[in-house]
């Protein structure tokens, strides 16, 4: 504060002494004032714009959720909400896992090796999960965002070659029981896998990575 006052006193004195160099001094003052004004305007814009970012309570509500998976029967799926998105948690049977492991060579998958970044590194495998029997997916079709239906039974309405998986009712995209997308359907990517970890054998925590990983769901190609 005292600096400002001294500065003013000096400039007043200088004014009385040399009015010839008024032009450059005036330009400097205008420049300095404009620069500070721009800083000020920016400083005002920052809080207003940043107020539109998710608020603290919104972020807190997006904290990891613990799900008890002990009652999911083999072949069953439950859907939970995390960060306002549907999360599929499916308990795959040994038969389904066998078919999945072999299916890589048989069925026409767009991205059988999960090359595109749609999952954390610990889910970059044929079962796209930590433990093969538990599948965790973000249940949002990578085409235009509908929620795919759960169709684990082979055959039926989806044709004799249907081995079980997900079928999106909006535009017909199909995924296998690891969430991998078929060729020839509108969806471009595999269903995303969220960060998750096993807190215990019966409790899965959605939204938190196992130790050593810092996968961020926002980094995937297509949510």
């Amino acid at each position, binding site marked *: 504060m005292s600096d400002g006052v001294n500065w003013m006193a000096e400039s007043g004195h200088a004014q009385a002494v040399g009015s010839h160099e008024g032009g450059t001094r005036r330009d400097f003052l205008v420049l300095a004032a404009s620069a500070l004004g721009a800083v000020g305007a920016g400083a005002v814009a*920052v*809080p207003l714009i*940043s*107020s539109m970012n998710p608020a603290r309570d919104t972020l807190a509500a997006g904290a990891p959720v613990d799900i008890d998976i002990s009652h999911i029967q083999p072949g069953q799926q439950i859907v939970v909400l995390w960060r306002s998105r549907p999360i599929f948690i499916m308990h795959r049977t040994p038969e389904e896992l066998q078919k999945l492991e072999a299916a890589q060579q048989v069925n026409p998958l767009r991205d059988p090796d999960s090359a595109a970044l749609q999952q954390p590194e610990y889910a970059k495998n044929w079962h796209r999960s930590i433990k093969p029997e538990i599948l965790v997916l973000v249940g949002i079709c990578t085409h235009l965002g509908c929620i795919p239906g759960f169709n684990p039974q082979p055959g039926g309405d989806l044709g004799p070659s249907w081995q079980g998986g997900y079928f999106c009712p909006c535009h017909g995209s199909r995924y296998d029981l690891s969430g991998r997308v078929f060729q020839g359907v509108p969806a471009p990517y595999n269903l995303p896998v969220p960060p998750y970890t096993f807190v215990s054998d019966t409790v899965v925590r959605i939204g938190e990575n196992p130790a050593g990983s810092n996968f961020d769901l926002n980094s995937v190609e297509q949510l």
Partner: protein
Amino acid sequence: MDAPRKQSGLVRWIDHRLPIFSFMEHELHEYPTPRNLSYWWNFGSLAGFMLVVMIATGIFLAMQYTPHVDFAFDSVERIMRDVNWGWLMRYIHMNGASFFFIVTYIHIFRGLYYGSYKAPRELLWMLGVVILLLMMATAFMGYVLPWGQMSFWGATVITNLFSAIPLVGNDIVTWLWGGFAVGNPTLNRFYSLHYLLPFLIVGVVVLHLVALHQHGSNNPLGIDRKGPQDSIPFHPYYTIKDMFGIGVFLIVYAAFVFFMPNALGDPANYIPANPLQTPPEIVPEWYFLPFYAILRSVPDINLLVITIPSKLAGVIAMFGSIGLLFVLPWLDTSPVRSARFRPVFKWFFWLLVLAAVVLGICGAHRPEGIYVVLGRIATLYYYFHFLILLPLLGKFERTRPLPTSITAAVLKPSVATGKVEHA
């Protein structure tokens, strides 16, 4: 403001199709302004600045606020706690209302003192009164939104005033409420109107500025500009002076926002609205206190044949106090504008200021004892000042000789013109 030379091609292309640049050049740069304006002339630009601040913060607050009786109070607290920088936007907006009124009241009193409402600026003045009315409506509705005790009960008291209107009063009140009492429908419509009215204010401000530019600003001497030597271009002289004024103003404003944000408010509004419990004191925000005092100072008026109930009389007196401002240019009959040359008027002007302060103090207290008496005296003086004093004074006052021109006054400071510059 100055278009750099190398862009003159682009500037000319645009200006030929939409004369923004030549408009700005004419109205903001060259625009001749009296050379002797004092700092009392900064308050118009300060008011415009506050209008922008209130709209900007209001729009961003509106993104986070919930206009429902069950959620409004909590949504404001959520803004204070959880929204990034929410506490800052809220306190700027809340204190901004007070500061908007401070600068506007000073701007109005400046006009009263220097006769800025006189010909040819009558419409300019009347547009200003319209802006004041819109501001008061906006502020009243805005204060209801946080849904605290004062929000609810202030809304109840003021909307109930309309029941004083004979015959249709109660229907009007029910229509205003959208229900049997102030409630959710009321809150929602106040939210909608509170968002709308500021943009109406912007429109009237534009008209206000157009009217101003017709004849240019008044000045402390109250005499017209006689020639180009009496004026200076608005830019850079008054642009820099206005910016400096904004700087000083911001320091005071920031002191309140950051260090005493609740000093001008009522603690009772941090209690969620309770329709079943009236607070011990119902007090409006400070900028409404004088009008509140006028409202409460009128007793039943017994006219032998009929009696005007005090509620109706109070409503008439309160709205009348603003209404008579519209006709002020015709009430004041003096040919001399500025109080600098009207020694008798000057004294009464300060009496008017005193009356306004006294009314404000009375408005803050319960209408008992000395406050009733003072309130009535001050109300009577207010009406006397405008309806009786001004018309008569104009005819009988001996004014001091006016300087021949602004420049003449500036060059000869001995001709009691006072300083043109207050550092």
